């Protein structure tokens, strides 16, 4: 077949290698990311469902209808049951209101129970096999000091005695630490009846845990359940169960998708560029073929067949590369983190292959479309310009590719649109800015040394090409900057949730008379702690004498009781942005105590300085005047308050005290001592929750890093494609210059300057684009506050210059190493 012979000849002469390589990379990068994110997503869902203990949980205040069990079984659902309630636990003279959970032997369906043989031990945690046997109980470490018992002792739950055999370190469905039900006691469901604690009217939650190996089975199961469930039952999935963690996971997934989209775009740019070069080189060839009697139809068929065969081959190779890459990434992560990644699904493979086709159709074909229409007369009149597809159409197809790929990949339109918008902005800005900057560089160049002059002259001579290259470099750099910033700020945000040494335990319910001794105890032990804040719970009832509930306002603070405090010193993460702190503040004529309001609450409630508020605290009335408005960091893990009053303002409302402290893992036994001395205070062990979140975040963050590297490779490929486009012309010029006696150093130097100028210009433009893109992403997709990235404005042009000039010089090395005689001869 002629097309195949032509394909082989074109390949041999190197004309298709770049296009083929770009396609391989497109499919490879996209495939690797698609496959890997798919695996990660599946594993993350699995991992996070481990937090729920199941894929879905039906929660009810009444026993689950036993008729449903066989039905669920028939539908292929795995099931398990748990019953939770609060009950007194006795040991000798001691008793304690514990959170009890009775489970059957299949519990949990996802994730596992982690136990230890010692209380508050830093090591020795193991994954439990099964659940407590009948007659046994596994308990939260803090239950031991509370009941003054050791492992092996027995405790009474209702009418039944259980032997405490293990410390329960971690369980799925650990729940929200702030709704702490008291220390956990885990027992076997078989024993439940013998305790006789569940009486009509007891507050009990029945949980029916469900899981399925296939999404379809699960979905159909849930559909069936939604029909069957009564008003007492509720289906819980991860989203409802663990809001905070779900957000983190969503952000992580979005980031990976974003990286994948950017990878596609970079590969697309490389494909478009190499297709353009291919087309340019083939104009003469097509004109010749047509003068030899080939019709437009024949030419079209010949080229389409070549492209199709090329794309198929490249896609297959790309897919193999993708498979190898994703296996390598997964291997790295698995060996580093002892996590088991699930195998990828079928869809990413199909999607990767489709990427090759889409990339070819949308990026390569528009650039090649005019080829069959090249007039045969071009063999006689070389200056004849063929009817190229208008640039706007080429852009349209590229945009189409982006939308289609993003739609296929992420199903996230907001993401696609902000990427597109930023691309358009960049292209518009590029044209204007690049022209201006180019002429500026010429003016500077006129007064500079010879190397520099040569570089600027080269830029000017290839004005159109320079513009295109600047556009390409800026797009590539813009995407890379964006990725970098998004990653950095996201990782920073994650870490902000968990600062090093951040408080990881909350102590609440401290009575007034224990404040001083507890402070002393903590300080004697050198434990890093926050101040003890007095706290009363109250409800905001009136704003400026208007009933707060009747005002048309939406804010958390109106829906429930809120924590109120007073203090004379601001915590370090608090900052007054309006009004004055107590040192400078003066009561007004109304002589009301002052209150400092958190910004978000002030905005939500429409409060301004001087507004008068009325609170109801346990039936008593508390009035105050807004003295200042504050911002604070809700992620600081310190006690934080919407409303802070003037010192002493709450004294008559008998407050209890709250604080948070940092306790490293090895110091955890201190909790034994603390709780033994002050049994009534409540300790919330945030470190357990933090650890769970951190495990997930570490996984995602590492994956993100690898994805970033792969995308960077796509960017490098683009730069090479662009440099390659100008290589032939450069070789001629350099040969001429060298024939005329220029030293290699001079030529390489001018190449370096030329690309450095390109890089700086592209860097500047890229930053503008990246800021626009980031703004869109931060506002609409990631919901991170917008702020300029000053370091980018310095690092951008420098990085651009370094990267582009480095690659440019590397790409152009052959220009000075080929003997000039050979080049000049080829010219003839």
């Amino acid at each position, binding site marked *: 077949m002629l097309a195949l012979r032509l394909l082989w000849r074109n390949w041999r002469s190197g004309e298709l290698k770049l296009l083929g390589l770009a396609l391989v990379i497109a499919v490879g990068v996209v495939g690797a990311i698609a496959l890997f994110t798919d695996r990660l997503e599946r594993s993350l869902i699995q991992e996070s469902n481990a937090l729920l203990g199941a894929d879905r949980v039906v929660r009810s205040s009444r026993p689950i209808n036993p008729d449903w069990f066989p039905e669920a079984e028939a539908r292929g659902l795995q099931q398990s049951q748990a019953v939770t309630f609060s009950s007194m636990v006795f040991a000798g003279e001691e008793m304690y209101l514990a959170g009890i959970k009775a489970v059957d032997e299949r519990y949990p369906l996802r994730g596992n129970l982690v136990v230890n043989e010692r209380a508050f031990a830093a090591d020795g945690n193991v994954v439990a096999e099964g659940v407590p046997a009948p007659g046994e109980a596994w308990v939260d470490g803090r239950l031991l000091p509370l009941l003054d018992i050791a492992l092996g002792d027995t405790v009474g739950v209702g009418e039944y005695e259980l032997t405490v055999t293990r410390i329960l370190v971690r369980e799925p469905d650990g729940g929200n630490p702030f709704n702490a039900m008291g220390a956990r006691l885990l027992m076997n469901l078989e024993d439940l009846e013998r305790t006789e604690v569940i009486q009509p009217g007891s507050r009990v939650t029945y949980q029916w845990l469900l899981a399925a190996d296939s999404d379809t089975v699960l979905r159909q199961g849930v559909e069936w359940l939604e029909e069957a469930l009564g008003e007492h039952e509720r289906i819980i999935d991860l989203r409802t169960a663990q809001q905070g963690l779900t957000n983190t996971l969503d952000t992580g997934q979005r980031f990976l998708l974003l990286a994948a989209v950017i990878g596609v775009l970079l590969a697309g740019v490389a494909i478009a560029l190499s297709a353009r070069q291919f087309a340019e080189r083939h104009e003469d060839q097509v004109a010749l073929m047509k003068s*030899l*009697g080939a*019709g437009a139809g024949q030419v079209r068929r010949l080229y389409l067949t070549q492209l199709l065969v090329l794309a198929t081959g490249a896609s297959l190779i790309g897919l193999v590369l993708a498979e190898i890459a994703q296996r390598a990434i997964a291997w790295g992560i698995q060996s580093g983190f002892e996590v088991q990644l699930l195998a990828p699904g079928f869809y990413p493979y199909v999607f990767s292959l489709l990427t090759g086709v889409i990339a070819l159709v949308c990026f390569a074909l528009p650039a090649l479309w005019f080829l069959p229409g090249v007039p045969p007369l071009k*063999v006689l009149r070389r200056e004849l310009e063929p009817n190229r597809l208008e640039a706007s159409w080429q852009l349209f197809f590229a945009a189409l590719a982006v939308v289609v790929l993003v739609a296929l990949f992420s199903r996230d339109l907001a993401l696609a649109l902000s990427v597109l918008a930023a691309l358009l902005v960049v292209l518009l800005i590029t044209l204007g800015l690049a022209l201006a900057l180019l002429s500026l560089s010429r003016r500077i160049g006129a007064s500079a040394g010879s190397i520099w002059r040569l570089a600027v002259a080269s830029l000017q001579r290839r004005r159109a090409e320079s513009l295109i290259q600047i556009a390409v470099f800026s797009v590539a750099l813009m995407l890379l900057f964006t990725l970098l910033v998004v990653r950095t700020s996201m990782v920073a945000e994650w870490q902000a949730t968990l600062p090093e040494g951040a408080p990881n335990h909350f102590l609440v319910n401290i009575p007034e008379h224990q404040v001083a001794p507890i402070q002393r105890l903590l300080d004697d032990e050198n434990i890093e702690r926050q101040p003890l804040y007095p706290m009363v719970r109250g409800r905001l009832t009136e704003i400026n004498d208007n009933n707060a509930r009747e005002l048309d306002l939406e804010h958390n603070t109106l829906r429930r009781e809120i924590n109120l405090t007073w203090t004379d010193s601001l915590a370090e993460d608090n900052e007054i942005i309006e009004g004055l702190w107590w040192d400078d503040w003066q009561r007004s004529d109304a002589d009301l105590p002052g209150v400092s309001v958190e910004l978000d609450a002030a905005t939500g409630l429409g409060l301004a300085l001087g507004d008068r508020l009325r609170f109801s605290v346990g039936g008593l009335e508390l009035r105050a005047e807004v003295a200042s408005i504050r911002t604070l960091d809700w992620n600081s893990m310190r006690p934080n308050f919407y409303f802070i009053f003037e010192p002493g303002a709450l004294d008559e409302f008998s407050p209890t005290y709250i604080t948070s402290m940092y306790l490293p893992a090895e110091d955890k036994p201190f909790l034994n001592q603390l709780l033994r001395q002050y049994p009534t205070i409540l300790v919330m062990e945030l470190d357990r929750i933090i650890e769970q979140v951190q495990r997930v975040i570490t996984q995602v963050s590492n994956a993100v890093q690898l994805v970033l590297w792969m995308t960077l490779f796509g960017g490098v490929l683009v730069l090479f494609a662009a440099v390659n486009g100008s290589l032939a012309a450069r070789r001629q010029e350099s040969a001429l210059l060298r024939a005329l006696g220029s030293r290699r150093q001079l030529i390489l130097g001018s190449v370096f300057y030329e690309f450095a100028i390109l890089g700086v210009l592209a860097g500047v433009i890229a930053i503008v684009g990246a800021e626009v893109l980031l703004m869109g992403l931060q506002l609409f997709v990631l919901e991170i506050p917008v702020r300029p990235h000053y370091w980018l404005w310095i690092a951008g042009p420098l990085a651009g210059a370094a990267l582009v000039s480095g690659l440019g010089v590397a790409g152009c090395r052959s220009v000075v190493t080929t003997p000039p005689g050979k080049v000049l001869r080829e010219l003839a």
Partner: protein
Amino acid sequence: MTGTLMVDARDIEKRVTTAEGELQILHRVSLSVADGESLAITGPSGSGKSTLLGILAGLDTPTSGSVALAGRELTTLDEEGRAKVRADHVGFIFQSFQLLPGLSALENVMLPLELRGVSGARERAREFLARVGLSERLSHYPPQLSGGEQQRVAIARAFASQPRVLFADEPTGNLDTVTGAKIIDLLFELNREQGTTLLLITHEERLAERCGRRVELTAGELQGA
């Protein structure tokens, strides 16, 4: 000579619109070339020689007038139709050789045959390359060949598809005198053997003299001779 007309052009005009307004390149040019005849078109640079050649060969269309090539009326055909006529009857030789740099000498000669789906393309190409004295250079690429050698490959390519009419636009324009003379010899030798009709543009007196007839184009008007 069979007496039939291979090329028959009547009242050809060519006008193009440029930035400076309309430009008339050819003024009512009529020209006929008999089968087997050889014709030289001479004239100063910019007089419209290449434009005329392009129209006669069916690469371009006249603004008005009619052109018949090998008995087919070109002006009634679309580009696909003209391509068919070119494929069946026409060969070209260009000043700049127009060899594809990525293809070996042999492959360059094979290309028109392959495009036509001729069987035994490789053997035929080899034969013609031998005919122009390049048997030893079959697998060489154009950049590795001298200008004269490249033009010989182009001549082999033109004759290998055994066209009835050959158009040449300054075939010796890029060659030195000695090499040019050799190329001219080769061209006419093959032309005589194959009985091809030959239309060539040249600045060179030597070349024009060897043609059966010559016409001169000045400022788009034919000064017949």
